[in-house]
């Protein structure tokens, strides 16, 4: 397997990368970790005419928590897994990270690259959606923040324009008395989940469940967000809301069943964690 020929540009600055992308549009692809793009190129499922390599832009490898948590385009999965700021401010992201592929892939792949790839089977899009994050797109025309709930359009399709790059994401601080939980079922360690659930639960001052939301991966054409009103009815609500794929790994009915079971378990754990946090 050999990728089709392409031209290679090692970006010297963010401005350089954006200028080249503005010129080339959809013919060019940004190369960050490449852990989804390169396999697709090896299979020739993707044949970009040009790659703009971002790996030299070290400034984009950041995690900051001086306000809301911000994570830059070159922060790799390994950092998401290990960074103390992420464990503290976004425990849901921290909990999901070890489920993403294998250690060697996590050493190279980036969170923002994963989000821009928009694979509905992937864990991080569901997590960012559950947390109500927003994503900063930049181009030579300027910049804009895109809420996670309008970012994921379809399978491998996002709201990014052909000249835009996802440069960072922002995750809002969790409200007080909030607990989170990520659970998934996969056939083997490192496989895509048959279904995964990211849950966020906020308790009211009396300790009763206030707001709750779950986002599921591999449950439809995009990560699927479900706002829960009645926590006891949530599994059934999720089973109705999702439209999971059927393939050799599992039937749609089994995934739907799993979505319900994992929702119940994830919400229970999130409630317990919210209680412990308050």
């Amino acid at each position, binding site marked *: *397997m*050999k*990728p089709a020929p392409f*031209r290679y540009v090692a970006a010297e600055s963010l401005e350089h990368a954006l200028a080249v992308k503005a010129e080339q549009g959809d013919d060019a692809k940004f190369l960050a970790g490449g852990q989804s793009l390169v396999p697709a190129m090896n299979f020739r499922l993707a044949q970009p005419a040009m790659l703009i*390599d971002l790996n030299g832009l070290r400034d984009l490898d950041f995690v900051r928590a001086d306000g809301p948590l911000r994570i830059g385009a070159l922060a790799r999965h390994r950092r998401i897994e290990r960074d103390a700021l992420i464990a503290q401010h976004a425990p849901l992201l921290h909990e999901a990270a070890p489920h993403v592929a*294998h*250690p060697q*892939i996590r050493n190279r792949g980036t969170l923002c690259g994963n989000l821009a790839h928009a694979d509905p089977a992937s864990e991080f899009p569901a997590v960012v959606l559950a947390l109500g994050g927003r994503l900063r797109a930049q181009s030579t025309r300027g910049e804009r923040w895109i809420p996670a709930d309008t970012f994921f359009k379809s399978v491998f399709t996002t709201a990014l324009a052909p000249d835009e790059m996802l440069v960072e994401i922002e995750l809002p601080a969790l409200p007080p008395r909030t607990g989170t939980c990520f659970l998934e079922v996969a056939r083997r*360690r490192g496989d895509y989940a048959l279904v995964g659930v990211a849950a966020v639960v906020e308790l009211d001052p009396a300790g009763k469940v206030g707001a709750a939301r779950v986002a599921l991966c591999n449950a439809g054409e995009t990560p699927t967000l479900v706002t829960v009103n009645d926590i006891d009815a949530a599994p059934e609500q999720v089973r109705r809301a999702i439209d999971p794929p059927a393939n050799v790994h599992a039937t749609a009915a089994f995934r739907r069943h799993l979505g319900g079971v994992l929702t119940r378990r994830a919400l229970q754990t999130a409630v317990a964690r919210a209680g412990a946090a308050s």
Partner: protein
Amino acid sequence: MNVELVRVATTVNGTRHEREVEPRLLLADFIRHELGLTGTHVGCEHGVCGACTILVDGVPMRACLMFAVQVNGRALTTVEGLAPERDRLHPLQEAFRDAHGLQCGFCTPGILMTMKAFLDENANPSEAEIREALSGNLCRCTGYQHIVDAVKLAAERAR
């Protein structure tokens, strides 16, 4: 399509190499075909099997999921760089030999490179940690038991 060649200068196992390559040349193929270091094996070529795992600046990565042009200025270690000298094995390799941590040996170079970095970080791993660290390397011969034994043995001997 006429594509310009790109210069890549990289250090592999302490030796500096410079080549001009097509951008599409995968790092695994660069190591094998350009440098003649055939210890790095190529299995699935899409990041699942782990046979091509090498160290890039000390960190295990898939050589089939990177392009050679991306390691310009980087230091690589392949399985050929493990042994301290020609007639002596690295302690991890010794442990694999003593604990029968391989059968056909195809997956072994990738496993050694993964476990080298793992033991450097975690000198006293539990069996669960070893199995988690091994999750990105497929072996179709051993059933993994003797690989886990070998890693445990290497960790024990290093203490």
